[in-house]
Each structure stands twice: as structure tokens, then as C-alpha cells.
């Protein structure tokens, strides 16, 4: 049986801003949830210059490690056709934010739980003008240390490379994760087979 060949990828280009970002795109955590964390960082190019037109998508499990199956990230108002924001209760696991003029992005979501042998992580997908094909990476929380040490992907990488996949703890349950597209300290990007 022959299988159809895939549709090629193309860049998201510079003009997605009125179509893909949505109100509350970075507010993935239901308000007041005690497991809320903030993940944020800069996207940088091969010269260390901020990338002001990247789009970041975050996808991850809830604190119990389960992958959400609920819709409603882009909940809509049938009266005006506008966006209502999330319903305040359900966790969809999905966040999407454009970088700002400083190349910075931030998402408030729930602390991901561990799955299988993995240390807890969020899947991160990067789109930008100049990227002919999006890039996947993983944002791991910096603790617990034994979970990081046992993680099959992190363990398979040289320590300096693995370190690009671990966010840095900051005060107030905030974790910094810079994404370097190219060059020294280039972030590890993934291909799934």
C-alpha cells in the first residue's frame, strides 16, 4: 500500500500577527490554580540578536502527568465573533504567544507532571520568519535533579547541550528558558521519528 507524501512545510512569515495569536494565548493556567508557573525567555538568532517576530507554542501535561483533552484555548463569542478568553476552569495545556519587540515571550501554565521515564517537561514549538520549518524543543523544569539525571533524552546528550533544555529557576515560580536558534549555546532541537 502506498502512503501519501507529506505536504512540505513553509515559513510562518512576518505577517501572522493578526491571525494566529489570540487573547489569553499565554494564560494557559486557570486563574488561581496553586500549580501555576511562569515560563519565559528570549528567542535569539545566530548573532545573539533578539528575534521579534517568532511565535512560540507550548504544549504540556497537567501536574498529574496526563495530557489534557479539553478544547477552549481560543473560546469564542458567538455574538460578536470575538474572543472570550478561556473558561477559567478547564486546563487545555496549550499556549501560544508571539515574541515582543525585545524577542521576549512568557506563558503562565500549570507545572507539568512526569510521564514515563521523562523528567517533567513542556513541548515547545518555534515558528518565525526565516524558519522554513518549525523547530521543536523541550523545556524541562530544573528539579527534581534525580529526574533530570534519569531522563533518557537529557542523559543521551553532552552536559552542555543538555543544559540548553533545562529552564533556570527564578523567584515566584518563574522559569527562564532562552531559545538560541544558532551558534554558541545553540538550543537542542528535536526531530521525531
Amino acid at each position, binding site marked *: 500500500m502506498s502512503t501519501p507524501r507529506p*505536504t512540505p512545510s*513553509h515559513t510562518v512569515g512576518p505577517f501572522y500577527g493578526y491571525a494566529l495569536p489570540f487573547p489569553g494565548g499565554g494564560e494557559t493556567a486557570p486563574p488561581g490554580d496553586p500549580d501555576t508557573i511562569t515560563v519565559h525567555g528570549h528567542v535569539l538568532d545566530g548573532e545573539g540578536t533578539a528575534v521579534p517576530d517568532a511565535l512560540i507554542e507550548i504544549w504540556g501535561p497537567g501536574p498529574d502527568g496526563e495530557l489534557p483533552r479539553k478544547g477552549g484555548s481560543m473560546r469564542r463569542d458567538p455574538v460578536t465573533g470575538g474572543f472570550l478568553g478561556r473558561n477559567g476552569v478547564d486546563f487545555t495545556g496549550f499556549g501560544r504567544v508571539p515574541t515582543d519587540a525585545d524577542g521576549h515571550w512568557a506563558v503562565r501554565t500549570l507545572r507539568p507532571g512526569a510521564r514515563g521515564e521523562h523528567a517533567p517537561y513542556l513541548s515547545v514549538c518555534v515558528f518565525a520568519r526565516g524558519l522554513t520549518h518549525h523547530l521543536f524543543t523541550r523545556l524541562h523544569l530544573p528539579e527534581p535533579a534525580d529526574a533530570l539525571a534519569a531522563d533518557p533524552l537529557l542523559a543521551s546528550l553532552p552536559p552542555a547541550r543538555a543544559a540548553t533544555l533545562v529552564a533556570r529557576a527564578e523567584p515566584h515560580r518563574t522559569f527562564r528558558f532562552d531559545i538560541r536558534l544558532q551558534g554558541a549555546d545553540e538550543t537542542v532541537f528535536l*526531530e521525531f521519528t
Partner: protein
Amino acid sequence: MALTQQDMDNEIARHREAYEKSVAEGAPRADHPPRDYPPYRSSLLRHPHQPLVVVATARDPEAVELGSPAFGDTDVTELDNDLTRRHRGEPIGERITVTGRVLDRHGRPVRGQLIELWQANAAGRYAHQRDQHPAPLDPNFTGAGRTLTDDDGGYRFTTIKPGAYPWRNHTNAWRPAHLHFSVFGTAFTQRLVTQMYFPNDPLFPYDPILQSVTDDAARQRLVATYDHSLSTPEWSLGYRWDIVLDGPAATWIEDGR
């Protein structure tokens, strides 16, 4: 000094020849563009130098990327797939419908997943502050739509045909008319952002973004088919474009292919 179209044509030809040579020597055909494609200048500082690290999902059923965010009726409104009905008046341009199916690598329909579409207006101008080239905005056209695939993987948009537009990759660079698409699958690994083109556009050979797909057959898969049976008398012209989501073997290799 800014590159001319002739410089660009030479570069594009060189990359295509290098690709064809590699295939002749046994390299697998590439379905996607290389991330390092110098004719598309913006890729120069934005592609990783290190090879991607392979994650074998067949041995990793707990990978987060094997699930995908869900979208449902609450995430779209009934008007979202008609880009011509967002404002008081009708947009200027040639009304078209674009329809097709979203399939996985197994040829199975991808059901109930979100498709987002965005585009320039009929004059080739985006409703975006950073697009300041001298073409008119259309007060009756924004150019963004959404829909969910049906039980057969089908989708349908009504919109207007976008215009070609200039950009600053090289001197006299023009993009062929295209629709931007964003598609989700049942696994996050199947995520796809791409562009659909219209048949027989004379700008195809000059465009480093389309030509970044160096495989001739793969590039052809980005071009919709004009289908007269989809055209509606006195109303619209119809195009058909199927989308096949790539994805790791674990999501599509079953029963011996």
C-alpha cells in the same frame, strides 16, 4: 550590494542541482525544505548549525509530543471559514472557495482538528502594520479564518484570491499569490505551517520561499488544483488542495504499510 533576481536564480539553480545530485547518489528524497536555505536570506541566522537530535517515538509512548491540543466547537464560530463576511461590505477581489481533506501519512482522515488560514487582500496587502508597501488596504477584508476538519478530514474556506506582493529578500523580489495555513494533527509532532499556491503562477521560479522545497514533486504538492466542478455559477471559482501531515513513524506505520 543588493542581489538581483539573476543572482537569486543562479543560487536557486545551484541548490536544486546539488539536491538532485544527492538524490542520484542515493540520498532520500526530501519532503520539506532544508532549514538552511541561503537564497531565503532570513534563514541565514535563524537555522541551527547542529543536527537535530532524533527522538524515536516508537520506543517512547509517553512522549508529550504524541498528544496534541484539542479544539472544539467553542474555538470556532460558524462564520470563521468565510473570510468574505467579516465586515459590512463585500471585499474587493475574485471570490474563491478552497476545499480539501487533511490526511495523515497513512492516508487516514484527520478529524476534528483546527485549521487556521491567513492571507493578503486582492491587492497583495496584509492587514498588518508592518506591511507598508503601496497597495490599498480593503476595509472589508482582514484575511484570517478558522475551521475544524469534519469526519472525513474535510475543510472548506470561502475567501478572495490574494494578490502577489513585493518583499525585500533581493531586488525586485515578488511572492507568488498564496494562502498561509496552520494545521494541527492528532499528535503535536504532526504540526504543520505552510502555504498554498495557485496553479500556473508565473512567479513560481523566482520565489526563494517556494523554491526552498528543492524536490520537484514535493513543491508541486503546495499548488492547489483548479476544479471547475467546485466553481459556482455567478459566484465563485473553486480550488482543491489536500494536506498530508507528516509525523513520526509511531503515528502512521501500522499493518506493514
